């Protein structure tokens, strides 16, 4: 999650939250400073609720909605503590918001949403979307998404985003009215560009490789971590059997009985301690997951560049070929093959008037072409400039966040070790009394 440099930590949402949730919010909402929405407003995703309703094909479905609460910071600072504004949104609406942002700001590395379905689970966690733990982690992930957007220098000013936070009704219509869907590039078009672009900016090519590597390594890490967690669970839980057997054995022992019995209690404590340990580790996994999904966002920015570059190249190529044609027409030499050329060879030369007409059409087209190329060039440059600003911002954010995540992982391991020392020291004490 983002680090906090400035003093203005806009964080705590609803005061009715439990300590754990508050803590989670604090972790999630350490955001960047700057002239962002977050400076003026507190945002949180406070609750999740199940709803049932009819879906698009008129079938009953159960889904979860999330409560978004917002409150202007100044009000909270003056400790007026007014009730926050709130509205309910479901996951699909978040998705819609994000798609809109992706299309509208293609040069920005748009923050990802939490995963749609639970992946990288270790055996104890269920892969069920309705599972309360999953819902809770998704709630935290959605909050993190909103805070990321709200702290982004550009995204946080978007009207649709403000609308998303402010009014429940009519938002969907407003989004569709922007016509963003029409602006979306087709997948096919993008893929085509990727293969055919000749001269993409080297930095973007490198970035694309990096995003591939990032995606591959984080998903591998998440998989292995889940397996390690699974095994650790097994180790701890089996110790619980010592508790049971020690207790039964202590019944027949005179001198050893007390020691055995109390050692057994500590073994039980050891076995149950793993639940908290692994729950904490899930936060770490969530941090990794965010960057797994960020890799996809990075790639999207690269793809857009490739597409624009390709369109520029195509326009330039068109222009060049038109100029070529003009030259041929002017000098009378035919260097390039054209059907017109062939037919005129077969069926006779064209008249000077016809040639004049063609030439003037060509000149027009060339003029248009040059305009187009200039335009595309400018677009490309603009895009590259803006994208690179955001990419630098993203890189710094990523380095900060991941470093912090690794440090907090180390802190977690330290806490696990300390707990282990505690339990076994207690057990040792009991054993020595046997």
């Amino acid at each position: 999650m983002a680090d906090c440099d400035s003093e203005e930590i806009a964080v705590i949402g609803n005061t009715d939250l439990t300590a754990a949730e508050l803590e989670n919010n604090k972790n999630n909402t350490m955001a960047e400073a700057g002239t962002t929405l977050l400076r003026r407003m507190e945002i949180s995703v406070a609750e999740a609720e199940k709803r049932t309703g009819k879906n698009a094909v008129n079938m009953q479905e159960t889904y979860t909605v999330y409560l978004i609460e917002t409150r202007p910071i100044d009000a909270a600072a003056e400790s007026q503590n007014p009730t926050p504004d709130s509205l309910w949104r479901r996951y699909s609406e978040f998705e819609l918001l994000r798609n809109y942002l992706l299309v509208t700001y293609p040069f920005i590395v748009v923050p990802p949403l939490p995963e749609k379905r639970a992946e990288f689970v270790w055996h104890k966690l269920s892969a069920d979307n309705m599972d309360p733990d999953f819902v809770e982690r998704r709630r935290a992930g959605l909050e993190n998404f909103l805070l990321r957007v709200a702290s982004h220098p550009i995204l946080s000013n978007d009207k649709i985003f403000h609308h998303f936070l402010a009014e429940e009704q009519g938002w969907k219509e407003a989004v569709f009215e922007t016509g963003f869907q029409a602006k979306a590039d087709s997948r096919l078009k993008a893929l085509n560009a990727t293969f055919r672009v000749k001269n993409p900016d080297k930095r973007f090519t490198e970035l694309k490789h990096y995003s591939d590597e990032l995606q591959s390594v984080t998903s591998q890490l998440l998989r292995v971590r889940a397996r390690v967690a699974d095994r650790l669970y097994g180790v701890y839980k089996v110790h619980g059997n010592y508790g049971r057997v020690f207790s039964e054995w202590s019944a027949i022992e005179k001198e050893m009985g007390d020691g055995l019995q109390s050692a057994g209690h500590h073994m039980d404590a050891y076995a149950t301690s793993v639940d908290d340990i692994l729950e904490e580790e899930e936060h770490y996994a969530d941090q990794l997951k965010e960057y797994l999904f960020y890799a996809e966002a990075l790639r999207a920015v690269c793809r857009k560049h490739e597409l624009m570059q390709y369109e520029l190249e195509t326009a330039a190529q068109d222009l060049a070929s038109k100029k070529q044609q003009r030259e041929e027409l002017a000098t009378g030499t035919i260097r390039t093959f054209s059907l017109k050329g062939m037919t005129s060879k077969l069926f006779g030369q064209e008249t000077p008037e016809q040639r004049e007409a063609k030439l003037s059409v060509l000149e027009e087209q060339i003029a248009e072409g040059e305009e187009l190329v200039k335009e595309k060039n400018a677009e490309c440059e603009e895009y590259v400039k803006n994208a690179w600003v955001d990419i630098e911002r993203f890189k710094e954010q990523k380095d900060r966040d991941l470093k912090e995540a690794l440090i907090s992982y180390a802190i977690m391991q330290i806490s696990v070790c300390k707990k282990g020392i505690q339990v076994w020291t207690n057990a040792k004490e009991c054993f020595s009394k046997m």
Partner: protein
Amino acid sequence: MSGITADPTISCTPAQEIPADLSGQMLELDEDDDLEVFSKDTTLTDGSFFNASMPTSPASMINQYKFEEEADDKDIFITVDNPESHVTAIETFITYRVLTKTTRSEFDSCEYEVRRRYQDFLWLKGRLEDGHPTLIVHPLPEKFVMKGMVERFNDDFIETRRKALHKFLNRIADHPILSCSEDFKVFLTAQAWELTSHKKQGPGFLSRMGETVRAVAATVRGVKNRPEEFTAIQEYVDTFSQKITSLDKVTQRILKEQKEYLDELKEYGPVYTLWSGSEEELVEPLKGVASCIERCCREKEEQISHLSETLVPSLHEYVLCAETLKSVLRRRDNIQAEYEAKNDMLANKKADREVEYKDLGFVFGSFLGKNPEEAKQQRQQRLDGEIEELKEEIDKLEDKVECANNALKVDWARWQKNMRGDIRGAFLSTAEKNIDYYEKCLAVWESFLLSQKSEHSVEGTREQQAAKDARPQDT
């Protein structure tokens, strides 16, 4: 064994039966034996056989289960090591070197080195049990290979067996009665051919068969008036056997889980290293985490080794002990059953003697042409003789029962102390190793944190730490 060397008038007899006149002296032997103190307490508070007012010298405060410690008055040291493979036309087997160093007077020399194979140990155990049916002889490692092993003679198996054989001999050496056994001495000192010839001596096949038959018959008959305390021991042993078997299984399971955890952990660290290859700023922390995980893997390996070398064999030993205990109790019951049977026979004979057989005798007598009065007298004399014989036998058996019971009672207390010590020691050692494992891992992660903190994000980590500290602790 200061008791023995200090009192040369008492000799160790490899008694099949303990003669009545010596049994009292044997009990004295136990009283004088200072070595039966296993805890660091100077008072014996568990109501054992020993006199609580017995002077306990510092020399006697020895942890019996630490065989490697040089006890002040321990006068025999045995090691089992150096396994060697022997291949003959018929079979392949392993011999172990048995090295004995002793100052005991009954040994001609003070150092002996012999080679023994598992069969020899089995023979020794059998002889000791035959000679002392109600003493608790420490178990031998199992004869056959457990499931999951490919070769009979892989290194781990041999090493585990060697350790168990070492413990077996040392436990016998520490036993006040068993260590006096002639068979034990021969085992430790004789050359191969001497041992073979000695093995051939002893009760012949037929007499052993006879004993076995009697034992089986006694088992079938069952014991009628088992003293309460032995019933209590039986109940204890039944439960103990269950619990120790469970613990053995649980511990094996933990070992398995730990190994599987280690396997996954070994794949985990390298992914961080792989990642560091794509990064710039994050190279140091990523490599740091990878290295931490690697070091934790090494600590985990040590922890696993310790578990399999200490706790697992100890618990397994006591699973075997439980079976030994059951056999000992059975043998005690049989001895009592034999005595009871003879008593019943006596009662029958006496009843026979009283029965009015006048009519019968007259009838038989007249058939055989004898005087009925004469026949009656002959019969009476015969019965009297038989009754006398029976009475003698019963006296002997009564002594046998008493000796057996006393021997068992004493050895039972001894066994319990040993068991407590062994089990406590094994679990203590395991707990210590676990603490050590966590402490080492803690140090590894803390030094990583230190290396990171010395860089920029001091603010961040402090906040993080404060956040962590503020989190409610629920363990």
